[in-house]
């Protein structure tokens, strides 16, 4: 199973999102220093979850980072995160 699939599973279980976009941007970073060249190093994640309601941005990012800790250890190098509670204006 790919890192993307594992992250999708982990976030679905952890956040019960109403929207979850995971975009693999590893190509954009291929060859830069620290890029492992696995094709699964850099991801952009947009997630809308009721579990974010009433939590600060820092808290939301920590929740996601904790849920994806195993992937971050295994070779996912960078996550760009956008986290919203339902009803918040989503910046695409």
């Amino acid at each position, binding site marked *: 199973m790919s890192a993307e699939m594992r992250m999708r599973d982990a976030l679905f279980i952890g956040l019960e999102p109403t929207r979850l976009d995971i975009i693999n941007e590893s190509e954009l970073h291929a060859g830069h220093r620290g890029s492992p060249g696995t094709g699964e190093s850099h991801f952009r994640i947009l997630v809308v979850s009721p579990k974010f309601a009433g939590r600060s*941005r*820092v808290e939301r990012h920590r929740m996601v980072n904790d849920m994806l800790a195993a992937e971050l250890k295994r070779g996912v190098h960078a*996550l760009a995160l956008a986290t919203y509670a339902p009803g918040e204006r989503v910046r695409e």
Partner: protein
Amino acid sequence: MTDQTAIHDWIRKTIATNDVVLFMKGTSKFPQCGFSAQVTQMLNHLGVPFKDVNVLDDMSIRDGIKTFTNWPTIPQLYVKGEFVGGCDIVREMFQEGELHQLIHDKGIAHTNHSHHA
């Protein structure tokens, strides 16, 4: 172990004695990572003076700031001793005008008073 304690103490002192601190890769003049460069640019846009800490100069600070904040990535922005966020959060706040508001509310001198991003 004592090492990490010493580093955490140094970080604590640094964020206590400087209103705005950016832990970054490179320096404010020569950022060495796109994310660090973005945050530098936003702070410069608001005209906020800040202390830059180049984590590439010292591996123990690079690791220490991650454990201190419980945050896995660099850059990390601190304002008045409080962790504000990494690049994504700071950018979002900048775009929403919240970063300027925070700087204003904390009473930090800055030169750009327009709310336009």
